[in-house]
């Protein structure tokens, strides 16, 4: 049984078990922290850097989704510095891929777009990289558009941790990273894919979508994740 730690978040006294993360304790207490790669029911990887928080006594910013709470900790979830870095992180996601909201299947239902709106981003100040990325439409029911992928790895984790197929993984390093199916084969040729669609439903953007969706038609339903995780006892 984990011990209980008492700490302050934004000056508010809160308590949580020592095996809980700052993000979990904050959410239990109704304190919002923005996230993109994190989704309840899957492991946390701290990839998107949106949940960065300030902790007194530590000069660098820490991701709330992978940092555990500790006794006497003082956490700030909002500051000019945090807003600056969060905006920068989202702007970099936009600049790194090819995100054309107006013609995207997820327009209006996209977590990246929603985050940009929430952070008040109306311009991208960085030069667009405009990478050449392809579309894999070889699967009978689903399409993967790498242009819209933000490498959150939700698809990789849900396929591995929930479905147990581990069809998706990440290839390459740094800016050249890309999610692939099996050994970088066409999705439609994948011997491991069960066509369950969990990757599609957990993808925060229009990178994974149901074939035949027109602009703005792809809404994601991922409440199943919490349910499955609870049933399996994966959730604390």
């Amino acid at each position, binding site marked *: 049984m984990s011990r209980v730690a008492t700490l302050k978040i934004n000056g508010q006294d809160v308590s949580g078990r020592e095996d809980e993360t700052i993000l979990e304790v904050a959410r239990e207490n109704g304190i919002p922290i923005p996230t993109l790669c994190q989704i309840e029911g899957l492991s946390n990887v701290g990839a998107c850097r949106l949940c960065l928080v300030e902790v007194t006594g530590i000069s660098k910013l820490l991701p709330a989704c992978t940092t555990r709470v500790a006794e006497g900790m003082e956490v700030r979830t909002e500051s000019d510095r945090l807003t600056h870095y969060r905006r920068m992180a989202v702007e970099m996601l936009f600049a790194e891929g090819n995100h054309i909201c*107006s*013609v995207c*299947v997820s327009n209006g239902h996209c977590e990246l777009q929603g985050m940009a709106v929430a952070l008040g981003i109306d311009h991208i100040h960085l030069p667009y990289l405009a990478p050449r990325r*392809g579309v894999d439409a070889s699967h009978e029911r689903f399409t993967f558009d790498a242009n819209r992928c933000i490498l959150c790895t939700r698809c990789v984790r849900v396929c591995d941790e929930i479905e147990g197929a581990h069809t998706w993984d990440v290839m390459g390093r740094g800016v050249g990273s890309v999610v692939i199916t099996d050994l970088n084969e066409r999705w439609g040729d994948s011997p491991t894919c069960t066509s369950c669609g969990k990757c599609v439903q957990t993808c925060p953007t229009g990178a994974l979508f149901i*074939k*035949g969706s*027109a*602009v*703005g*038609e792809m809404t994601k339903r991922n409440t199943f994740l919490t349910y499955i995780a609870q049933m399996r006892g994966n959730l604390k």
Partner: protein
Amino acid sequence: MTQTILIDPVTRIEGHAKITIHLNDAGEVEDAHFHVTQVRGFEKFVEGRPFHEMPALMSRICGICPVSHLIASAKACDALLAVSIPPAAANLRRILNLAQIAQSHALSFFYLSAPDLLLGMDADPAQRNLFGIAQTAPQLARDGVRLRQMGQQIIELLSGKRIHPGWVVPGGVNQALTEEKRDAILAVLSEGIGIVQRTMLWFRGILKQYESEIQAFSALHTLFMGLVGPDGTLEMYDGRVRIADANKYIIADGLAPEDLNTTIGEAVEPWSYLKSPYYKPLGYPSGMYRVGPLARLNIVRSCGTPHADEELGFFRTLDHHSSFHYHYARLIEILYCFEKINQLLHTPTILSEHVRAFAAPNNHEGIGVSEAPRGTLMHHYIIDDDGLIVRANLVIATGHNNMAMDRSVYQVARRYVRGAELQEGMLNRVEAVIRTFDPCLSCSTHAVGQMPLHVQLVAPDGSVVDEIKR
């Protein structure tokens, strides 16, 4: 000494263009060209995209006529799916297209061309715009704004969005029409009809003042092309392509979309980014044809709605060659649009919930043809086994008119421009003939008479002989 007059940019049109007029030693017009000066690249950058995205992608070509591209693109996608879309969906798309045509025609007539028609071709350029109209004839300006608003409102009621709606999808539309929205659309139609009739009465009255222009704009004899319904009536959404000669004799009829590749050729000229389509059997450039309101009314048996047919009777007394009468044809079509929307909203299945057909792609090639405000619009897509676009070719309405516009510029320049005594009004007439076609060269309206017109007479050695700025 030969000279070149450059009109750059051409104002009160949609998109960017310039005109060059070449004078000979005697200062007479030797040649003239209409240049489209921008390239958009849509056909290229859609390669590799899933075809279900095409309607939304293609509608982004234009802010004035997004609906036209949406419709033609969705029809090409229907052809890829090889489905017959539900009748209610076809009629809803049809209404959307008619509302689009009505608002676009209102823009062309009231905002872009009425300044020439009301204030005169030689009026002060500073006044020759919508604001000049608002001062001189406020009701006319209000009518223009109101008509455009009505068209846009109908589009919004149907599709949820005035510009770039995502409502039209491959296989139909993604939401049925509600009774409430149908009634809201029905409520505005009679006001629209009243406005158009009032405008026509005024326009008929001033036609006499423009006899010289009507004549000058009619020197060009071309074929005419457009869609017609099964009974030869005016049809904007479906139907088959009909081509008539300069004397309105039908020379090709009942052409299906897939026949158009063998009927229409596309030439490329070095002076313009716009292709020059031509009627293949007559070759290039003899196969020059016109599309749009004038062409449509020249090829149909009737409009199929009572008020528009009445006006068609008068229209047939006018010189059918003259591009000047694009204006009158445009007004008749607005009338037709409102009447036809009324008819369609009273069809029994219009509120049907069944508005979308679902299928996997069954064809590798699909062609969609519909009428845009400016004329026949063709989208042609080829996809791979996965449904990704391999090749896209668009023949846009303004493109069909390219050769006719180019030659009209020459003929009107020859009639009005004298190098020795360059006047702004002469050049405005050259622009005015372009405006009769209401070219939509790229995207949205960039100017309402406010853009600078810079005309230079340049000698072969590069020295500026004469200059007019506005």
